[in-house]
């Protein structure tokens, strides 16, 4: 109970401080650079220009400071630290990077990450598109979409518990309580410890992320499909195009922008995927991925900040193309305005 109270206090203080800051600084600004007026409120000298050249900074400064502190500074710092040793007090040049390209686990994570990048965005996007198309043709489509969308609200850890239960393994002869093994044994197969089968276990982990991300893809696709003009489709049909042709030749080009957006968004999620691997296998049985390996090196066994930072930098470098693409897309949009 006490904690709820202190939480409430903290919220009031935090929010209050913010309100005070914005109102206070604006009030000070208005007072300090008030227009000079005569007693009968006739303007002698307007200071609006000065006020309005300062005010934007009051508006953006808190945000800029936080961004600088929480994203820009750490990014630079991490990059620098990646050239230092475990405790961060001795410059080692490219040593950490050299070590990485000779380290089996690092190469394995790179391989797995590539696998994730190839499979998860593709499957999620494709499934999302299929579901969007299907659901638009059914009266209960909205409900169906809601159910498929729901996993988006579930945390990766929560999803891991849910799926651990699906992949649960009991030795042969005992009753299986995991759905997957129950299915396999009822079809006459052998129960498998799914998460320990190298290579395939990667796929089983990916399924969890696909389960979460498909809803996202579906929602965007669904909206984009609605944007395809009905007349275009009708015209194509009259021209004798079949549905497959319409789908690939008309719908896809129309929504290709959205497809790319979905693809890149999921790609970023995949690059950062950490919780699922940590909670399901912790990188054992050849399922290591970069983000988990980074966490491991940062904090396990005494912590190695140099190598941890190096791995974070590698993830960062992998995101840069997407970052550039995002900015260019944004500029193109701005130009259209």
């Amino acid at each position, binding site marked *: 109970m006490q904690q709820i109270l202190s939480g409430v206090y903290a919220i009031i203080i*935090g929010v209050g401080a913010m309100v005070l800051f914005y109102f206070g600084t604006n009030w000070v600004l208005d007072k300090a650079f008030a227009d000079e007026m005569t007693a009968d409120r006739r303007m002698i000298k307007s200071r609006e220009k000065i006020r309005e050249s300062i005010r*934007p900074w009051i508006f*953006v400064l808190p945000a800029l400071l936080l961004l600088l502190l929480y994203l820009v500074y750490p990014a630079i710092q991490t990059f620098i630290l990646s050239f230092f040793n475990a405790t961060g007090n001795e410059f080692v040049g490219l040593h950490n990077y050299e070590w990485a390209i000779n380290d089996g686990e690092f190469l394995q994570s790179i391989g797995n990450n590539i696998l994730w990048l190839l499979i998860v965005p593709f499957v999620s996007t494709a499934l999302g598109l299929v579901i969007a198309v299907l659901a638009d043709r059914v009266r209960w489509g909205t409900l169906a979409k809601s159910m498929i969308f729901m996993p988006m609200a579930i945390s990766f850890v929560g999803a891991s518990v849910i799926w651990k239960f699906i992949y649960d393994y009991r030795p042969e002869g005992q009753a299986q309580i995991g759905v997957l093994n*129950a299915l396999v044994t009822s079809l006459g197969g052998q129960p498998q410890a799914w998460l320990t089968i190298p290579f395939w276990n990667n796929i089983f982990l990916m399924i969890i992320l696909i389960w979460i991300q498909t809803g996202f893809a579906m929602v965007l696709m669904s909206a984009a499909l609605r944007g395809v003009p009905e007349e275009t489709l009708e015209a194509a049909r009259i021209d004798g*195009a079949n549905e497959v042709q319409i789908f690939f030749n008309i719908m896809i080009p129309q929504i290709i922008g959205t497809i790319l957006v979905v693809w890149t968004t999921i790609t970023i999620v995949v690059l950062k995927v950490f919780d699922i691997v940590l909670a399901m296998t912790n990188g054992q049985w050849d399922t290591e991925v970069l983000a988990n390996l980074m966490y491991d090196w940062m904090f396990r066994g005494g912590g190695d900040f140099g190598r941890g930072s190096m791995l974070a930098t590698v993830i960062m470098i992998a995101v840069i193309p997407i970052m550039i693409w995002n900015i260019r897309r944004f500029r193109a949009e701005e130009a259209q305005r």
Partner: protein
Amino acid sequence: MTTKAQTMAGAADKAASGTSSFNLSLGWWITRISLALIVIAWTIPTFGLFISSLRDKDQLAITGWWTALQTSVGTEQGRTGEADAQVETNGQYVLTGSIFGEGSTKSIRTYGGGFLPSSGTVEYGQGEQPGIRDYAPGELVTLEDGSTFVLESNGTYTYTSPTPFDFDRGRRFFMETQIPPTFTLANYQEIFRAESVDQSFINTFTVVIPATIIPIAIAAFASYAFTWMEFPGRRFLFYIVVALIVVPLQMALIPLLRLYNTVGLSKGYPGIWLAHTGFGLPLAIYLLRNYIGSLPRELIESAKIDGASHFQIFTRLVLPLSVPALASFAIFQFLWVWNDLLVALVFLGKTPDQIVLTSKLRELLGSRADNWEILTSSAFVSIIVPVLVFFALQRYFVRGLLAGSVKGG
């Protein structure tokens, strides 16, 4: 895409309405069935978790949740009371009691083995406890020394002997028991009582609420400035914001830890609020700018002409108009913070007053790995709030997603 075959034929030959309607209904069915299958596949995992969290923990451990409505059969050992509990009546020494604890719903199917002689009538295969199916409940077993033993299906037994019993501990036998389907809230009581999941629940709220409100306010001001105010470097600074949307927050961890260490912010709620604010800001500014930018320019202009300052325009005009966009981002941030594990692991401790639900759940995944009753019910507690928020406010969430991604597409 299952509908293609149908419409292909339909479009190619509209006149041949006979085959077309056949194909149409086939396609109709295929669409519905495949969508239904996908929906089922998508909901089963969560549904299974929910059902499991309500099951009796003994049943949960031995049978799948889809058998929740059936009686499950288990094997266990039973033990008579100790010899000093015997009572002498009419020259007979009698030991009575119940195998099961108070309030048990189990019943006995068969029993035997252990100290009981083999009936010799049942064959046992490998992986079976020898003797376990020798006797039916209520059947009187006569032992070599002339004593008799009978076990009723409710677990009460009577062990009678002409000579005094003399053993240190209760004698062991085996039995097949059945447990009727039971649903219970005991698992939830257990996690609140013994695992203090309730405390984590409150901790999560303590993190989530400020970490949702603070970035909204800061981002709203900033995005207004980015849209309607003139200042040098506006464009460049906004490009940086767009670029920062995709920065993996992993890279912020070590430098921030060191920074927090020097300013003494670490392992506390203010530290994590600020961290979530910082990490959430780029997307917040981007989303809100898209929305605020779509407000009609004339609105702002006319307010300016009326002599309102930007501050007044923002607080009295733009902010109220932007509520839907604020709500969209609020849901985003709420879900993100609620579900976050990494930031909580690094910026909050594991003490009872700081450990959040996701972190707690991970501890349980390790420490109670095979206590499914604990895992399922804790997982359910951790997902119920975001799922409720999600279903209630799905409209805003979708709107936010669209604004954040396909804007202008």
